């Protein structure tokens, strides 16, 4: 075994504190401890360093950069030394950050950040490094490793093949996660820089995913199963979201069972909100905002070439909780029995105009029992199917029993 690397590093550390220590002597001590006395290398290093620190009355020397640890054992706030592989590099959000990405070892994965001020060598994707004196930090509920000017980085050679553990979606926690999941929904992008967003599912649950526009990033195909290694798990307003820009995406053959991304809710429709019924939308590409009565779009001003749409915004209530629902055109047509064409005709030939459509909708469905299913966004349900709930005489008998007879 060669101790010169470690010895040189230790001697440089000592030198940084203004003292001289001969690397050859240090290497000799290390060899003696390890080979003659069977001390583990990390422990040998610690004892040599401690000895030097005593000799020169240094405080800060200690074991360089804290205890060596596996990635899954890191705790926020500690200084540490890790050996890990760069499994992903991500675009850096700020000029203060030179590099960011994901490190992994056989026990887990963690995000890392290299400060621009650290003057660190550029890390390369796919290579192993030893990081001494890095700081474990916590940001938005997930821990990460900060590489600063005091961190010593050395490339090491390892041929360990990392097999990241796949986590059921329901068990994801903020940080880094790998899942095997199916793309079950694709949603409209809500941002210029967004390439794709939608919903992933496995048997345990569903999670939103997002891919930001970046060179070499491709969209996922809806209905396809993927293994997604080292995705970033973020939390937004109580929900998790997988950022796949860091992930290694591997399409899988075949299909997997998934739970439905839809939730169901039954109750009485207790309110229909203004803005329900026949509405006009802004025709400008990608806008789609609802226009005011004067055909005014808050962004694109007067739009005489508006597009009609039908929808119902309301509250469904089961007596214990009440939930906001948004019913889009097709389901609205089916539920109210009024097609969009009929609604347009009604609005155009009636003195009340579009209000007439609202009033008819109200008379047909307000106060009725409905069962809706759809996906949940920002605590509002986007309904994709909705049925009236009918009276079921069978329930009466069971409830009569529960009430305990006429006595």
């Amino acid at each position, binding site marked *: 075994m060669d101790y010169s690397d470690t010895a040189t590093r230790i001697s440089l550390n000592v030198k940084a504190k203004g003292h001289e220590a001969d690397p050859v002597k240090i290497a000799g001590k290390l060899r003696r401890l390890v080979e003659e006395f069977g001390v583990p290398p990390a422990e040998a290093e610690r004892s040599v360093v401690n000895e030097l620190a005593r000799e020169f009355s240094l405080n800060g020397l200690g074991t360089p950069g804290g205890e060596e640890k596996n990635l899954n054992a890191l705790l926020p706030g500690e200084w540490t030394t890790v050996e890990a592989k760069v499994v992903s590099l991500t675009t850096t959000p700020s000029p203060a950050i030179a590099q960011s990405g994901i490190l992994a070892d056989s026990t887990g994965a963690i995000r890392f950040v290299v400060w621009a001020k650290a003057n660190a060598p550029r890390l390369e994707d796919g290579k192993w490094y030893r990081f001494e004196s890095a700081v474990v930090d916590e940001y938005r509920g997930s821990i990460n490793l900060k590489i600063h000017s005091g961190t010593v980085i050395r490339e090491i050679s390892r041929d360990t093949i990392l097999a990241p553990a796949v986590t059921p979606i329901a068990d994801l926690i903020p940080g880094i996660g790998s899942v095997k999941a199916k793309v079950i929904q694709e949603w409209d992008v809500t941002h210029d820089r967004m390439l794709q967003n939608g919903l992933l599912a496995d048997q345990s649950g569903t999670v939103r995913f997002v891919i930001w526009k970046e060179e070499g990033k491709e969209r996922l195909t809806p209905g396809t199963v993927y293994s997604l290694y080292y995705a970033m798990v973020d939390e937004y307003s109580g929900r998790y979201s997988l950022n796949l820009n860091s992930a290694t995406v591997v399409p899988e053959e075949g299909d997997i069972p998934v739970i439905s991304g839809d939730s169901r809710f039954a109750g009485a429709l207790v309110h229909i909100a203004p803005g329900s019924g026949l509405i006009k939308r802004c025709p400008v590409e990608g806008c789609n905002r609802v226009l005011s009565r004067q055909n005014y779009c808050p962004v694109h001003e007067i739009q005489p070439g508006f597009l009609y749409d039908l929808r119902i915004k309301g509250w469904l209530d089961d007596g214990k909780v009440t939930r906001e629902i948004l019913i889009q055109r097709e389901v609205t047509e089916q539920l109210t029995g009024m097609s969009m064409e009929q609604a347009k005709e009604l609005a155009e030939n009636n003195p009340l105009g579009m209000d007439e459509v609202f009033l008819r909708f109200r008379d047909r469905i307000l106060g009725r029992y409905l069962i809706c299913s759809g996906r949940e966004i920002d605590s509002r349900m986007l309904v994709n199917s909705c049925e009236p709930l009918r009276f079921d*005489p069978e329930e009466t008998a069971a409830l*009569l029993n*529960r009430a305990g007879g006429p006595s």
Partner: protein
Amino acid sequence: MAAMARGGFSRRDFEREPARRVFAGEIRESRIHFREGDDEKSPTYVLLPTGERCNRVFLVGTLTEKKKQGDQNLFYRARVIDPTGTFFVMAGSYQPEAMQQIARIEPPAFVAVVGKPNVYETPDGAVLVSVRCESVTPVDKDTRDRWVIDCAKATLDRIDALGTTPDGERAVQEYRTDPALFRKLVYEALSQLSL
């Protein structure tokens, strides 16, 4: 922070009060009402004898009578019957939609009512509970029957949980609620459904 990033207003800050299912025979017995918090806009609640606070109700029954009252401040009073008794329903100028809806209804008719219960005392000392409506919509008999089932279930759930929550304890203390009485009420309501 999260709320700021999403435009300074978080939808989660606002929770709409659920509409409780209560039989006329129970709401008639309610006396206790209170305001949660000191703010003028804080919600007010009626404490039900079966131990749940109630800011809003959903009920379905037969509108049998309606009466227009007042000159300057026009309002409607109506009676809505369920298998256990009568709800006193009203809609004033602050509920123009409900008022217009009532105006168009020809009694008798099945109606679904969403509204806020109020407890008040008459000059001669009697306590009355009325429902100030947000909407009164004509519905069919099937919806009425569905409501009786729904309301029976909700009432039995409340009876089962009576005394296990702070509101439930308070109800037991203030009303000396006899669960058997309300079970009987539920039983009678269900018995009137055509089997």
